């Protein structure tokens, strides 16, 4: 073999090496993460609590939407507007304000049940990289919450349309398909982000009761307290908390504040993402710092 040949080969080797390294770097991240996600997926569906939480979410959504819708229809009928139109999506969006609590319950159990049973030891033995465990749990709850949101939202819309079409209500139910589809997708994303935020809180807090309390405070408690103070800064702040940010993102017309959230949907999504990122960062920091 001549000298030139060697040098050409070594250049090729170097190129292949660099490319290989980059591919290896990608696979060192992705392959183990994929495996960790697979494990979390098996764990999520092998306990009953997941099913209970999802059933609860669906029930809240359907019953909430039908109840709100019936109320609105009755009001419309009483106001004497003959043959008033009611959009089926509106009551569903109102009900969607309740469902994040059920999603939070599901996501809470994904992490806190491991601390309660000390199963977290086995989890961290199998996947010792703390961030990877957290990412895997988030990547599993997010799509489940999103799909649950879309499916239960669809069921709720259908239920509202079916029930309110009954003659007793005397209203016409509108079903604009594009609007409804967009609402459902946003709802799925909203629920996914709430569930991921909860995983972050759970990793930081570890106990189920503590996690649910913190998430409840973030969603409801703190915004309510802020609203009660009555100050304009407090009001603005409360509207940026995750639940109201989510309702802004959904462009829900009728919220607990008495009307739509007074800023654009995009800003609502941005706040929601910020809260989720903060919770994940807190969870990650605590997972890394504290002993298992």
């Amino acid at each position: 073999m001549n000298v030139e040949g060697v040098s050409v080969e070594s250049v090729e080797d170097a190129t292949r090496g660099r490319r290989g390294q980059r591919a290896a770097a990608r696979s060192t991240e992705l392959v183990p993460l994929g495996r960790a996600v697979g494990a979390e997926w098996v764990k999520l569906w092998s306990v009953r609590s997941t099913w209970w939480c999802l059933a609860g979410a669906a029930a809240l959504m359907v019953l909430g939407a039908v109840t709100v819708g019936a109320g609105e229809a009755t009001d419309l009928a009483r106001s004497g507007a003959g043959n008033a139109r009611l959009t089926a999506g509106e009551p569903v969006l109102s009900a969607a304000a309740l469902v994040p609590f059920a999603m939070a319950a599901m996501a809470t159990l994904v992490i806190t049940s491991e601390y309660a049973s000390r199963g977290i030891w086995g989890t961290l033995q199998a996947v010792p990289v703390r961030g990877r465990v957290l990412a895997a749990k988030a990547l599993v709850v997010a799509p489940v919450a999103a799909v649950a949101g879309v499916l239960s939202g669809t069921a709720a819309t259908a239920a509202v349309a079916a029930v309110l079409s009954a003659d007793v209500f005397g209203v016409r139910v509108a079903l604009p398909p594009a609007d409804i589809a967009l609402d459902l997708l946003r709802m799925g994303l909203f629920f996914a982000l709430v569930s991921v935020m909860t995983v972050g809180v759970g990793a930081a807090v570890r106990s189920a009761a503590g996690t649910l309390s913190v998430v409840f405070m973030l969603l409801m408690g703190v915004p309510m307290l802020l609203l009660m103070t009555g100050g304009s800064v407090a009001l603005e702040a409360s509207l940026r908390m995750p639940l109201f940010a989510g309702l802004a993102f959904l462009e829900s017309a009728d919220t607990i504040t008495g009307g739509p959230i007074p800023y654009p949907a995009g800003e609502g999504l941005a706040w929601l993402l910020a809260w989720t990122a903060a919770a994940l960062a807190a969870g990650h920091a605590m997972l890394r710092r504290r002993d298992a």
Partner: protein
Amino acid sequence: MISLKGLCKRYGDRTAVDDLSLEVRPGAVTGFLGPNGAGKSTTMRLILGLDRPTAGTALIGGVPYRELRNPLRTVGAMLDARALHPGRSGYAHLTALARSNGIARGRVTEVLQTVGMAEVARRRAGALSLGMSQRLGIAAALLGDPEVLIFDEPVNGLDPEGVRWGRHLMRSLADEGRTVFVSSHLMSEMQLTADHLVVIGRGRLIMDAPLAEVIAGSALTAVAVRTPHADDLSARLGAAGVTVERLGENELVATGATIERVGDLAYEAGIRLHELRTREASLEQAYQELTAGSVEYSTRGTAA
């Protein structure tokens, strides 16, 4: 191979593990002994990267646990058999673990058969007896066919047949050249299983030696003699500086001398012997001597 170097773990002002350095070698069962609260479980948690050491290192084959790729394929461990979601079946538990480390699905069925719980694998883990949970924990440890095995009280809750099974399992794992590190407080069990012993007390290393050496080193390892001239021999041995205990009309136990020396002294005095043998201390006795000074919760101390 597990190597600990200057390993320390403090929780507040309590020191659980104090400057522990040792190596656990492959091809042997290493028993890990110590009184309650001596730091055995903490040491295992440090090895497994569950807790962070305050100082020092714990390496497995030269690598910290947290840096192992697919750690279950290198280290199998059972710390607490009940440490799993009570609502999940053993089968699902093992399937999740297998997925996390890219272990073939067939391996789950295989290890379930190895530990003899294939029939109850679909039952909720919370409904399993302690013995069955223990077997499930061992199955999880074996899942990745690892080089290093760590068991915290593995035969706890097993029935006598299960204890025997566990003993054979440890033995065969070590005979296959694996590193087997087992903690236990059942001394009789350790005496039958372990080749090497590591004894700690109050987080510090007390003894790191082969089992035979630990037992030979005990003050209770002695020479038993049966002779019709017990009085005579007792005086002779006493004069030679050997401690003698009279057990019966014709029986003596001599400590502080080898069996050869006792035999020679009797021969020189022309004393007939009907029996001359080494009476080995049990591991339990040897262990109690070793740890007498470091029992954290002594029953005697409570009266004060």
